[in-house]
């Protein structure tokens, strides 16, 4: 392809958009809406996932053992627990260790535990279990119930279940809205390109008579669609970056409690979102123009 030909395609594509400004703008707005929803869903889902991961690191399952087991019994239980699927690590905590940890947690007020030693320690023997993924917590709990000698199981089930459910609902809702807006975008782009084709009827007719190839005639219209897609994808991202940063800092400011969880950084989010949104925008634009060309440009 000659550079002059590429220049011609770009020039014709841009002039088509300009002559048809209102429809061009409608198409861009439709793509923008679609990309905005996609970006918003991704921001929320990505943050929920990030938070879940932090919880996986901090929250495990604690298993308490009744009575005073022998060290063989403890070893035996540890092996059994280790064999359960998705169990990453099993750490045995003796009542003495537990007492030390408790004292450390209370810091300056550790004197309330004074008088407690190995002979009268009320704390149980326990295992601290770490999982490879939080979603498998249920199956691990089921398996634990089958092990003899376990007195009590403690875990952060309700919180994780809530976040997991929220994540799922968000993913599905976001995907559905994105799909609907995507279809609408493609339809509006198709209409824009159709008007552009009709505007250039005479030109296309002459091009055919002088022997222009079909692709030569099609390219400017594809370029039109791609430009709509690119602009429609870039605008919401450029607007989105400062908005995301603002929302995150506002959340930290108004709810100091949530400082213990970390939101994803602006850079982390947009380094993924940029190429994906751009590709998706170009895809919408291309599908819109190609289907329109196939329908209205019999070359």
């Amino acid at each position, binding site marked *: 392809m000659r550079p002059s030909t590429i220049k011609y395609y770009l020039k014709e594509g841009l002039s088509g958009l300009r002559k048809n400004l209102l429809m061009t703008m409608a198409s861009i707005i439709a793509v923008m809406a679609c990309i905005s929803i996609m970006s918003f869903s991704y921001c929320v889902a990505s943050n929920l996932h990030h938070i879940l991961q932090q919880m996986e690191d901090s929250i495990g399952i604690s298993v308490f053992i009744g009575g005073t087991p022998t060290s063989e019994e403890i070893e035996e239980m540890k092996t059994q627990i280790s064999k359960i699927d998705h169990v990453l690590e099993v750490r045995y905590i003796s009542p003495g260790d537990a007492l030390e940890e408790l004292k450390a947690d209370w810091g300056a007020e550790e004197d309330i535990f004074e008088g407690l030693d190995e002979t009268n320690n009320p704390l149980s023997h326990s295992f601290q279990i770490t999982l490879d993924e939080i979603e498998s917590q249920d199956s691990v709990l089921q398996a634990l119930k089958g092990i003899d000698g376990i007195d009590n199981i403690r875990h952060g089930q309700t919180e994780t279940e809530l976040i997991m459910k929220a994540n799922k609902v968000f993913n599905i809702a976001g995907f559905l809205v994105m799909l609907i807006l995507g279809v609408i975008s493609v339809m509006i782009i198709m209409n824009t390109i159709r008007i552009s084709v009709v505007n250039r009827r005479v030109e296309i007719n*002459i091009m*055919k008579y*002088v*022997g222009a*190839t*079909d692709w*030569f005639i099609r390219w400017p219209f594809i370029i039109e669609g791609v430009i709509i897609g690119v602009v429609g994808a870039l605008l919401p991202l450029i607007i989105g970056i400062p908005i995301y940063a603002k929302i995150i800092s506002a959340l930290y400011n108004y709810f100091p409690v949530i400082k213990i969880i970390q939101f994803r950084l602006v850079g982390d989010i947009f380094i993924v979102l940029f190429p994906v949104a751009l590709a998706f925008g170009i895809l919408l634009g291309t599908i819109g123009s190609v289907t329109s060309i196939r329908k209205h440009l019999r070359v």
Partner: protein
Amino acid sequence: MIWLNNVTKTYPNGSRGVENLNLHIEKGDFVFIVGSSGSGKSTLIKLLLKELEPTTGDIIINRVKTNELSSNQIPYLRRNLGVVFQDFRLLPNKTVYENVAFAMRVIEAPNRIIRRNVPAVLALVGLGKKGRSYPNQLSGGEQQRTALARAIVNNPPILICDEPTGNLDPETAWGIMQLLDDINKRGTTIVMATHARDIVDDMQKRVVTLKQGNIARDIKKGGYCDEA
């Protein structure tokens, strides 16, 4: 150069465009296609341009059987055929120069060649000084000269004219005919469909008269035939 062997075109509604047409046009010929409305003139022109497919029979242009060409080969066939229409079909928002250059641009000719050939062909059709004018600033004759320049700028071996003088007054029409004669003398084969009796009579070229989709008369040198 152009062969039609037993070409029949039946339209989907059952009407016959042309029937069992046999026609041979040699390189360098100047042929008038005449006949009343509905005689098959337009069908013949459209078959040559491959706007229509023959129902049966073969069409050979420049040694290529055009009825066997796939759709992506049609553009390369059309580069052998210059076309001029009654209604000029110029792009109103482009200058005369741009209208002619457009024909070269769409077949991806290099800019260097465009800059060399367009002024030359505009000079040939007598529009050397009109390059910057827009079509609506031109007379009908000048517009048809622009269309003619566009048709021949890529040097096609065959020029097909569909009533090129139909919208012009006799004097202007005569100017266009002289131009076509010049182009023919440079070696281009010309096929011209027309109603213009005076022109056909004056030019004294080969005349093919169509009647109800058949050739009623084909003379090497002559005038318009009334009985058709």
